[in-house]
């Protein structure tokens, strides 16, 4: 399959690194409005052609798949152009800025029998996959509640970039939302973008709460899933994943066993995280390195995509609901 990429920024490097390792995939071109950004990305990843005009790239290269890794405001038009040029699109999150734009893209994709995939890579990190597997096996029990908390020492305003991640995890474990209540706060009282965000969500199969904080430290991406038989806790920026379970017998004894097992798991995860840094593992982008191979495989085999249009639609709907509370 012949791939191309538009937008040679930070996340593009992860896409290109992943694609380099995929059998049967050739990255044919990189495009960016900055000639130096396009050329350097191509040079670094051994890509033969680079462009500053995506129309020209689509016409000359005729890629099968285009990865769109530009800022969100340009996603819609670029994706539309790629679909109209006959390419599948894999678009960074958030896929579009409005729900209407998303509907248009999905319709165009369906009409042309081309895939429209949003990079909801968090779902493909090891921890959410393992939790989902335990839920599917029945060991976990029905999920009642999900907590997602991101603490990050960053400029205020970054929350909008993380909403799709948070929304996709909520959707994964408790389904489409019914109602949301949000709190957006600027700690210093100024009129700048919010640096604290909270949300309570009522969803089809349970409830969820979201936390985003620029002020709370240390940096972490906590995911906690509450089931009727188990509780799962993960930090998606590390490899830590622990399970607490209901054990038969004396409750206090079971709890102590849980703590011992938890301690052992955390130590193993710490070693794995540290080793990963030295060995050049994808780190926080591990989900992307799982999602892209699955997507390419599904396209090659005409199988169901790992991120479906319905999933994108429902996650986007939740993101828009969270954002609309902000606008009010």
């Amino acid at each position, binding site marked *: 399959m012949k791939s191309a990429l538009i937008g040679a*920024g*930070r996340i593009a*490097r992860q896409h290109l690194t992943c694609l380099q390792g995929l059998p049967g995939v050739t990255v044919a071109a990189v495009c960016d409005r*900055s*000639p*130096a*950004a396009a050329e*350097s990305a191509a*040079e*670094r990843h051994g890509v033969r052609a680079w462009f500053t005009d995506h129309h020209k790239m689509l016409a000359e290269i005729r890629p099968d798949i285009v990865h769109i890794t530009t800022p969100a405001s340009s996603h819609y038009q670029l994706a539309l152009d790629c679909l109209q040029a006959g390419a599948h699109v894999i678009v960074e999150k958030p896929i579009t800025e409005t729900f209407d734009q998303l509907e248009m893209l999905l319709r165009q994709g369906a009409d042309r029998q081309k895939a429209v995939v949003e990079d909801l890579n968090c779902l493909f990190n090891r921890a959410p996959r393992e939790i989902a597997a335990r839920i599917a096996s029945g060991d976990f029990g029905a999920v009642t509640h999900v907590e997602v908390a991101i603490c990050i020492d960053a400029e205020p305003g970054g929350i909008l970039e993380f909403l799709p991640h948070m929304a996709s995890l909520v959707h994964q474990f408790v389904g489409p939302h019914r109602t949301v209540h949000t709190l957006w706060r600027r700690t210093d009282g100024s009129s700048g973008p919010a640096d604290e965000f909270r949300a309570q969500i009522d969803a089809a199969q349970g409830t969820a709460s979201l936390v985003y904080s620029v002020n709370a430290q240390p940096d972490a991406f906590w995911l906690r899933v509450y089931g009727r038989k188990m509780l799962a806790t993960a930090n998606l920026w590390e490899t830590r994943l622990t399970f607490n379970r209901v054990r038969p017998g004396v409750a206090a004894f079971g709890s102590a066993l849980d703590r011992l097992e938890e301690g052992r798991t955390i130590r193993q995860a710490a070693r794995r995280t540290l080793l990963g*840094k*030295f*060995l*050049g593992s994808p*780190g926080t982008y591990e989900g992307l390195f799982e999602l892209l191979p699955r997507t390419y495989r599904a396209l090659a085999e005409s199988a169901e995509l790992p991120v479906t249009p319905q999933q994108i639609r429902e996650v986007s709907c939740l993101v828009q609901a969270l954002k609309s509370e902000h606008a009010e």
Partner: protein
Amino acid sequence: MKTLVTGANGFLGRRVVAALLARGHSVRALVRPATNASALEQLGVTDFIRADLVTGHLGDSFDGVEAVLHLAAATSGDEHHQFAATVVGTERLLTAMTGSPCKRLILASSFAVYDWSCIKGTLDERSPVVSSGTLYARDGYCIAKSWQERVTRRVAASSGWELVVLRPGFIWGKDHTGLAACGQPLGPVQIVVGPMSRMPMTHVDNCADLFARVVDNPRASGETFNVVDGPGERIWTFLGDHFRGIGHTRVRIPIPYALTYVAVKTLFGRLAERSPKLPGLLVPCQLEARVKPLTFTNRKAAELLGWHPPLSYRECLVRSFDVQG
């Protein structure tokens, strides 16, 4: 000569502006929109362009300007941030400049662009710069400065501009004395790799003096100059002066360069090729770019321009630490 100075409010920028004004040039300072430019105003600058190089409107910046002194660059942040701020910002500046009558450009490049792994003995302007094959094993600053110079040379050549490239070593001065080559603090001690290696240093006032001199010097046109104050102070010596200057009592633990390099190369050489997250000191080519024992020279600037650093090392210490020499 009316000179547009980008990055005018930075550590080097302020001293360059002062040096330009002292030599009778007029200055237009390009600063970010939110910058507090009171320090430049105190120097007597009244002509400001407030614009972000990456996103702002630069079209009017060149009216009446005879030379551009491009100092703006990111010195911190991740690789992507440094590339965007330094390289994309430069691309936009050059594009705006091509629409103006201004034909003279002085670029502040860096010693980081040299391929330290290939150089033995003395590093001078004839030494090889890092090639595409090894560039991406270096740090974000090196990648950004290499691309900035590459982009600038291309546009200058195709536009027929007079280009002067100055490559300063470590620029130091008051409140900027903790240089990257000075080792790693570890609790109460400072681990000093390659204590006898020399550092390509230039005091900010010496460096600014050369920048101000080349602005209207026709002998500099088309040339590249390294900006160093001399062969370089030894890391051990400078670190001692630095600790004395800031009243630090931290114990220095020396580790020979050769031993460190062999250990790093043996243990991390293969890993470094695929792991972008390794600390710089564990990546052989980055270790070399910090502490490889080389000597440095400003002979070309001396011979071609008659430039000699106005301040001695001792005078620089006095200026930097507010102490008596």
